[in-house]
């Protein structure tokens, strides 16, 4: 869907002013991306990958770029920052230095994109765009216009002592293109949390690129809790070298329309675990699109997405596993469990296996159902009324994934969020 010329103008103007202060390689990258975006706009539902998620409302909104960060209540921000973590806060895409303390010395680079351009340009030149292996309007829009973001780099063998939290706050009805680049050198280990919060009715258009060298381990969490009228695109592009391990857990709980995509390349004997939860209530539309590429032998991938669809909510899960020729001894398993709780809710689930090697183990399973009658009766037979029993089962469905979160402050935060949603039944966590 091509954008009309007048819709493009503000974006072009923004790119041009920005280029004045940026190195040539980045200027070229941005110009090319903007040109592609000008030609194609945001993706159309005619494209197979976007069939179930129509983003034309985003296009129609013609979100302006945020001129400046909105005002936020610092006490509220404090509640969003997880204890025991290093933080980098972005307000409407702008780095908020007074709310962040990213500076880590020595073996770790952790800074905002602005400082990265000034102090670690070589890392960006070499790596920016390296993990992105698909092309569409959101990525081009992001590449052309991203401003804030984080650069994280761990030198070989470094183990991050505390998790890093990248906190995205949306306060206005503006387009917010942000970008993270995460580089783990051989043997390094880290945990990174991306949180998306705020009251804005804007468009988050985010890209995270992750390059994992041999024998690294990255735990990555994404908590999307944007406001009821917000739009969200979040792309995650990962390249894993031999023996590396990548674990991602995402909780899609907010916004009006959110599309999350993960494209992941697995090296030899590497492992990935992708877990997710969609809570599509109200009029929320949540889409997760994942593609796992087994490119080398002996890699293991595990993927499990749970969906809770109620009211007029809609959930889309498209999971592709591609096993390329030569990727023998691949071990891949994918599951998608959907709870469809109202007549007006809808779920679409599309697992796809493309297997071009012969000695592989691939399994996938999709279920769509209601709450388990046996479980409901069990609870009722202990005196718990039918409605509370239903609530309790929903709580359990979500909590089951929260319990797997190994980062304690994040798990506690998620428990609190869950308890708030279920305050009627006053639950206590299992941990």
């Amino acid at each position, binding site marked *: 869907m091509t954008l009309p010329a007048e819709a493009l103008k503000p974006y072009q103007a923004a790119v041009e002013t920005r280029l004045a202060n940026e190195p040539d390689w980045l200027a070229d990258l941005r110009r090319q991306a903007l040109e592609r975006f000008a030609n194609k706009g945001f993706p159309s539902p005619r494209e197979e990958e976007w069939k179930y998620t129509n983003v034309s409302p985003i296009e129609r909104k013609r979100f302006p770029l945020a001129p400046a960060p909105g005002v936020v209540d610092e006490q509220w921000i404090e509640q969003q920052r997880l204890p025991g973590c290093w933080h980098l806060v972005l307000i409407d895409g702008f780095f908020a230095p007074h709310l962040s303390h990213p500076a880590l010395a020595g073996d770790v680079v952790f800074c905002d994109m602005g400082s990265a351009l000034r102090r670690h340009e070589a890392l960006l030149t070499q790596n920016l765009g390296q993990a992105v292996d698909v092309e569409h309007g959101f990525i081009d829009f992001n590449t052309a216009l991203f401003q804030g973001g984080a650069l994280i780099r761990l030198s070989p063998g470094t183990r991050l002592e505390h998790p890093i939290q990248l906190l995205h706050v949306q306060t206005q009805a503006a387009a917010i293109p942000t970008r993270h680049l995460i580089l783990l050198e051989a043997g390094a280990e880290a945990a990174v949390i991306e949180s998306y919060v705020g009251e804005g009715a804007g468009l988050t258009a985010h890209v995270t690129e992750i390059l994992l060298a041999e024998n690294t381990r990255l735990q990555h969490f994404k908590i999307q809790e944007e406001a009821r009228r917000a739009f969200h695109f979040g792309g995650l592009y990962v390249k894993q070298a031999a023996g590396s391990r990548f674990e991602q857990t995402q909780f899609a709980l907010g916004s009006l329309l959110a599309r999350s995509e993960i494209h992941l390349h697995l090296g030899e004997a590497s492992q990935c675990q992708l877990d997710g939860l969609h809570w599509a209530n109200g009029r929320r539309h949540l889409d997760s699109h994942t593609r796992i590429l087994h490119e080398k032998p002996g890699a293991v991938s595990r993927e499990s997405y749970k969906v809770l669809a109620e009211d007029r909510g809609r959930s889309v899960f498209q999971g592709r596993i591609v096993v390329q020729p030569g990727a023998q001894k691949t071990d891949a398993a994918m599951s998608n469990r959907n709870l469809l709780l109202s007549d007006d809710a809808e779920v679409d689930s599309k697992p796809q296996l493309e297997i071009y090697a012969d000695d592989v183990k691939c399994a996938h399973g999709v279920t769509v159902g209601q709450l388990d009658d046996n*479980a409901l*009766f069990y*609870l009722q*037979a202990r005196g718990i*009324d039918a409605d509370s029993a239903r609530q309790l089962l929903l709580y359990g469905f979500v909590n089951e*994934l929260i319990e797997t979160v190994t980062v304690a402050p994040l798990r506690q935060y998620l428990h609190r969020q869950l308890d708030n949603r279920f305050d009627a039944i006053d639950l206590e966590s299992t941990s």
Partner: protein
Amino acid sequence: MSNQPSLLKIENLHASVENKPILKGINLALDYGQIHAIMGPNGSGKSTLANVLAGREGYEVTEGRVWYQGKDLLAMAPEERAREGVFLAFQYPVEIPGVSNIYFLKAALNAIRKHRGEPEVDAMDFIQLVKEKIQLMEMEDQFLYRAINEGFSGGEKKRNEILQMLLLEPTLCVLDEIDSGLDIDALKIVAKGINTLRSPERGFLMVTHYQRLLDYVEPDMVHVFADGRIVKSGGPQLAKELEAKGYGWIEQALEEHA
């Protein structure tokens, strides 16, 4: 005779599942302080009776009445029955991921207390109470913090049922094959749990296939089910006869009768 209505009175109970008659005229009276064992071949309707008493959906009562403490049991919702003191130990306890056992126990206890007009149990008192009971069942504390029955072994699930019973102190305990899948030690522990609650204030219906449970928990009466009816009732020696002779002779007697 006292004026107090009896604990449980089942009168000519008929029940169907998906239009298929399963219970075909059950008559049974259980008094306070009594334990009745229910035996009988697979598929004869023992669990169906247990489920009808607890109020599980999908069972249609086509004839008959059930009086619990003089009240019409079948008119109550399942949770109401539980709050009034009816407890079913499930033949197949259900796994509920993501909900901790301890939360479940507390919610169940509070639901019953609220019904009785008592305040919610104090958190510290509750922990103490539950630890007392869990020790009696010789279970480790970790079972409290795990999700309900999830990943529990068959025997652990059965012990967990009795743990719930100990905590809730019901008036009518319906135990459906509480002894199946238990090793010798676990059987003794479960029997100990049952005997702890055995009292003049409550009664038990105990579905079982084996004499070995009855060795530890001596019943006042044994009823033998066949094809949705009680075909024989007797004292504890009836169970021993069944153990020795199997059910063949009962079915034979039935055929002759027909």
